[in-house]
């Protein structure tokens, strides 16, 4: 049974089809690098997978479920915004999200998550006083707080400082080791290629390529784009 299934998903913004029948699957434990130019529909697809918006046509299934209340406890989402409250302290932020995500013991889970991203010492500090790197690591801690089995990351590596990149790398590797499924849209093809077991290319709202990540992709990450540039769809 697939971890993530998107079956001919269409999404219209007014009359404009942002997604035109995108079909895509990810088996449990897979790490999918979702590539595509700006406006190809990567963010739209990720938001639909994360239940932030409904597809106009077609269906999305997470572990075979249409993405109702219960399955969301197993989904971790990291969007462009860091998704933490500036007026709350780091520990308060994570405790709140733990409570909302249905984590058994939110306080300890929050403390553990902060340690893992190296924010243990500043747990009482307010998010608004954090440096950029610390805020990014706090956002990463929030996404991994409830040990999600499915991780949906929208360009996670963009504008991360190198410490945050290292932290994210370890957490992703650790989650993959535990059998989590990851879908990561990205432009930093190098980082994505290293972790990815599967690559999907989105071109004007359609998945034009979805398959295992091959060696030459790692060697020359631009290869995939060129391959689909020559023959216009």
């Amino acid at each position, binding site marked *: 049974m697939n971890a993530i299934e998107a079956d001919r998903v269409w999404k219209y913004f007014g009359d404009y089809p942002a997604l035109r029948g995108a079909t895509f699957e990810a088996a449990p434990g897979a790490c999918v690098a979702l590539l595509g130019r700006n406006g190809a529909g990567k963010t739209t697809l990720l*938001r639909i997978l*994360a*239940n*932030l*918006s*409904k597809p106009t046509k077609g269906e999305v299934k997470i572990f075979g479920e249409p993405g109702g*209340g*219960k399955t*969301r*406890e197993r*989904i971790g*989402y990291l*969007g*462009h*915004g*860091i*998704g*933490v*409250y*500036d*007026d*709350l302290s780091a520990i*308060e932020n994570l405790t*709140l*999200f733990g*409570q*909302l*995500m*249905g984590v058994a013991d939110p306080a300890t889970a929050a403390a553990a998550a902060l340690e893992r991203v190296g924010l243990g010492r500043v747990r009482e500090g307010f998010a608004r006083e954090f440096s950029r790197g610390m805020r990014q690591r706090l956002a990463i801690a*929030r996404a991994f707080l409830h040990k999600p089995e499915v991780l949906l990351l929208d360009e996670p590596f963009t504008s991360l400082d190198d410490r945050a990149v290292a932290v994210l790398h370890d957490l992703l590797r650790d989650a993959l080791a535990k059998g989590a499924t990851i879908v990561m849209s990205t432009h930093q093809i190098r980082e994505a290629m290293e972790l990815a077991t599967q690559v999907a290319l989105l071109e004007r709202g359609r998945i034009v390529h979805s398959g295992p990540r091959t060696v030459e992709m790692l060697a020359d990450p631009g290869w995939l784009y060129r391959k689909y540039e020559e023959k216009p769809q």
Partner: protein
Amino acid sequence: MKRDLLAALFIARKDLRTEFRTKEALNAAVSFALVVLVLFSFAFDLERSELYDISGGLLWIIFLFAGSLIVNRSFTREVPNDCLDVLVASPVPAWALFLGKSISSFTLLMVVELISLPFYGLFNNIIWMKTFWPHFGLMLLTTWGITVTGVAFSAVTVNVRLRELMLPVLHYPLLIPLLIGAMEMSTALLRGDAVDNGPNLRLVAVFDAIFTALSLYLIEFILVT
């Protein structure tokens, strides 16, 4: 179901905690209420008995204006750092999120009202103490009506460009039936008339019931586009 209600309370607690920590909206609303109140005292000389008729009306206009400063912010508070996305993507259902937001805004509104009521009585030397408890009941019901519709509109217009201008134009006309009932009853209470407030109370209660149910049902469509 119980877990969702709990989640709503956690969200409400978060809002109240951030609000009482910064107190920006609270101070703004209370000072705004007092300023409007002073202006009204100059505009109307309430001491003369026949002007007593509008005492209930003035009171609710002050509460409405001050209150909407708070209610309009209920969802804009979630806009920085895209926190709204995280809440919508969480297992918490949309209605619980809406309920949490309404509870926190309702509490703040009541605080503002309970602070400005004594000043209202003082400046216009209206004896509000005598009928305080029935008045308090009316304030609870009416404030909930203002909050529910206000939070719904705040959610609807969360990323509309000129939303500060847009909200009063959308929100106040909708509130007119509620305000008619509340103003009538407040005037009767403040004047100490022995009039039957049953119909007004029923009007306010029916308004609350309709718009609470409608908002709880529609919020799903508002948040998940």
